[in-house]
């Protein structure tokens, strides 16, 4: 039973990570691509680490896994925020112009 749950979790996590990778290729600009990559960083890896909990079901593994998920949740948005902010600062004018064009057209 535990192995079936772990298998489902691994498949779901790998699937989300794959979709995130496809998204980085397919989506149009950096900020939109960031959405795909934050998803890989949070849900994809959380599901993979969740599979570890289901397989081992021991206190040492569970506590390490929970700590891993917490640190991922803590650090991933900071990296995403810094990249997004740098992009927004350098290309702000270009983006505003495009946005305005979109709104008018």
């Amino acid at each position: 039973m535990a192995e079936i749950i772990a298998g489902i979790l691994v498949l779901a996590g790998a699937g989300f990570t794959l979709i995130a990778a496809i998204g980085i290729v397919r989506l149009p600009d950096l900020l939109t691509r960031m959405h795909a990559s934050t998803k890989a960083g949070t849900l994809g890896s959380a599901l993979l680490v969740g599979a570890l909990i289901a397989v081992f079901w021991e206190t040492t593994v569970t506590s390490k896994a929970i700590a891993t998920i917490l640190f991922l949740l803590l650090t991933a948005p900071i990296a995403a925020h810094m990249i997004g902010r740098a992009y927004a600062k350098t290309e702000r004018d270009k983006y505003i112009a495009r946005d305005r064009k979109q709104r008018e057209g």
Partner: protein
Amino acid sequence: MNVLVYNLILAFCWAAITGSFTLGSLFTGLVMGYFALWLSQPLIGVDSFYFIRVFRVIRLALYFLWELLLSSLRVAWDVIRPFPSNNPKIIEVPLDVKSDLEILLVTNLISLTPGTLSVDVTPDRKTLYVHHMFADDPEAEVAALKGGMERMVLEVFHR
């Protein structure tokens, strides 16, 4: 925060008396300690806000997980469908939260859910710029962010 320390000490006592220091027994100790403190609250005069706060923290965590799942599926669907329908915009969210910790929590939670990415906070800390992937109706999205994530963070920190 004092009550949290009491609760942790009670959880430690529970684990020590039952003789098993596993995550499960510590968690049971936390729950039992919570009810023990709740029962003896008029006797020892602890801050009653703690008891509501625990529920609000749990609610925020569950809400965040639900949003994470929902918006992940939304972004994933948009990535794999043949013709993407995203309409990315930077929206301005006026902030009601004041302290550093609250702003950090709100911006982090917004960044963590796919579909929204907090880009910057203005120096006067009144406005948050959020890049939204499906901003067909910017005002509705601002209202959703304020009514969901920000309101729940506010309720965790204020009575």
